[in-house]
C-alpha cells in the first residue's frame, strides 16, 4: 500500500508532499509522545498524531516515516508545512478521531509492530 492509495481510500486531505505520495507504507504508528515515536516507529511507517507543530516533521524525518496523518481535522501550522516541504514528508488530514482512523487502516491491512522489547 502506498501513501497515495491510503489517501484515496480514506479520503485523507493532502496538505503537503503531493510529489512524495508514492512511498510504500510499511505499517502504522499512533502516538502523541514524540520520543515514543522516535523510539518505536519503524522506517516507512505512517504516523497518526494530533500534534500540528513543526517538530513532528523532524521526528518523521529522523525516523524516515512515509507520512504524517493529523486527526480530528487539525490543520498543520505554517512552519510545519514549510518544513515538511523541505524534508519531503507528506502531511495528510482526516476528520476522524485517531481510534476511528486506525481501526479502518487496520481493517485495510495496515499493521503496527506487534511487540517491542524494552
Amino acid at each position: 500500500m502506498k501513501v497515495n492509495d491510503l489517501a484515496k481510500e480514506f479520503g485523507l486531505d493532502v496538505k503537503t508532499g503531493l510529489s512524495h505520495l508514492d512511498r510504500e507504507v510499511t505499517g502504522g504508528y499512533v502516538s502523541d509522545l514524540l520520543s515514543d515515536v522516535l523510539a518505536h516507529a519503524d522506517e516507512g511507517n505512517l504516523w497518526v498524531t494530533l500534534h500540528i507543530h513543526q517538530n513532528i516533521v523532524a521526528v518523521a524525518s529522523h525516523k524516515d516515516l512515509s507520512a504524517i496523518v493529523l486527526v480530528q481535522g487539525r490543520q498543520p501550522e505554517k512552519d510545519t508545512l514549510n518544513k515538511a516541504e523541505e524534508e519531503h514528508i507528506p502531511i495528510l488530514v482526516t476528520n476522524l478521531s485517531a481510534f476511528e482512523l486506525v481501526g479502518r487502516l487496520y481493517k485495510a491491512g495496515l499493521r503496527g509492530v506487534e511487540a517491542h522489547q524494552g
Partner: protein
Amino acid sequence: MAEQGKEFEMHDRITKIQELVYELTVGEVMSSTVYTVKPDQTMVELRRIMRDKRISGAPVVERGKLVGMISIEGLIKALSDGDMAAPIRAKMTKSVVCLYADERLVDGIALFAKHGYTRYPVLDRNDDLVGIITKGNIVEGLLKKLEIEYQQTETAARNEHQRSSMKMFFEGLSADEISFAFTYRVAGQTLQGAGNAASDLKHALKKLGVCAPLLRRIGVATYEAEINLATYTQGGEIRAHVEKWGIKVEAIDNGPGIPDVELAMQPGYSTAPEWVRKLGFGAGMGLSNIQKCSDEMELKSSVPDGTRLTMRFYYLN
C-alpha cells in the same frame, strides 16, 4: 527463544510467497506459446502433434473459440480401444475449466487444488485463448519473481556497503590525527527551531558517506539531545566529531545541571515543564532513547555549571 525465532522466520517466508501469489496474475506466469488442435483432426494426428511438439495435452479450438481439452490420457484410452481414427471431438473433455489472464495467481492455484487437472487454458475477457498454465509455469513464475526481488535486495545491500566506506576514506589519508568537527548552537527555553542542528548534522554526515542505519541512529540520538538543550538549559552546543573509529556527538550546556543523573536516566522520569509536555515532549524517554541509539553514552553533570553528554557511534563492519 531460538525456537520462536525460527517460527517467525518460517512465517515470514510463507507470507512472502503468499504476497507473490496475490501480486502475480495468471497472465504473467502462463506460457503464451500454445499448440492447439482442431476438433475435426483425428486421434492419429493428435499423436503426431503431441510427439512433434513434445506436449502432453492441448486445447481444442474451433473458429477461434475454445471448445474442449484433449490430453495424453484421452490418447491412451483411444489407443487401447483401437479407436484412433475417431475425431478429437469425440474424445476431448468438453466441460473445460478455464482461467482468465487477469485473474490473480492465487485463484489459479485454488483451481488446481479443486479440479486436479494438470493444465488449464487461459482466456482474455473476450474469451479468446491467450495461453496455457501448468504447475510448472506457476513454480517458474514464482522463482523468477523471487529472483528479481533477491537481486534488488542484493543491489541495495551493495550500495549500502559502498556508502559505509568511511573507514576506507580515513585509511587512505595520512596524518597523525584527523577529524572533522561540526558545531551547532542551540537556543534554550524554546522549541522553535529545535531539531535543526540534528537534521543539519544528519545531512552533513550523509554527504560524507555515512550509511543510512548509522545515520538514523545518530539523527534520533542527536535530536533528543538537542530537545534536551532547548527544553532544560539556557542554550548550548552540539559538537560532532567524525573520527577514524566512528562519530562522537556531544551536547554541552552551561547549566543549570542535573542534580541526580541516575534518576534522570530512568525511563519515564521527567522534570519537563507544562509548555514542553503540551508539544508532545517531556515523556521522560529522551535519555533512554539516546542510550538505545548510541553505542556508548556518557552523561556528566554538575549543578549549576552544566552538563556534557557524550555519545559514540561506531562505523558498521
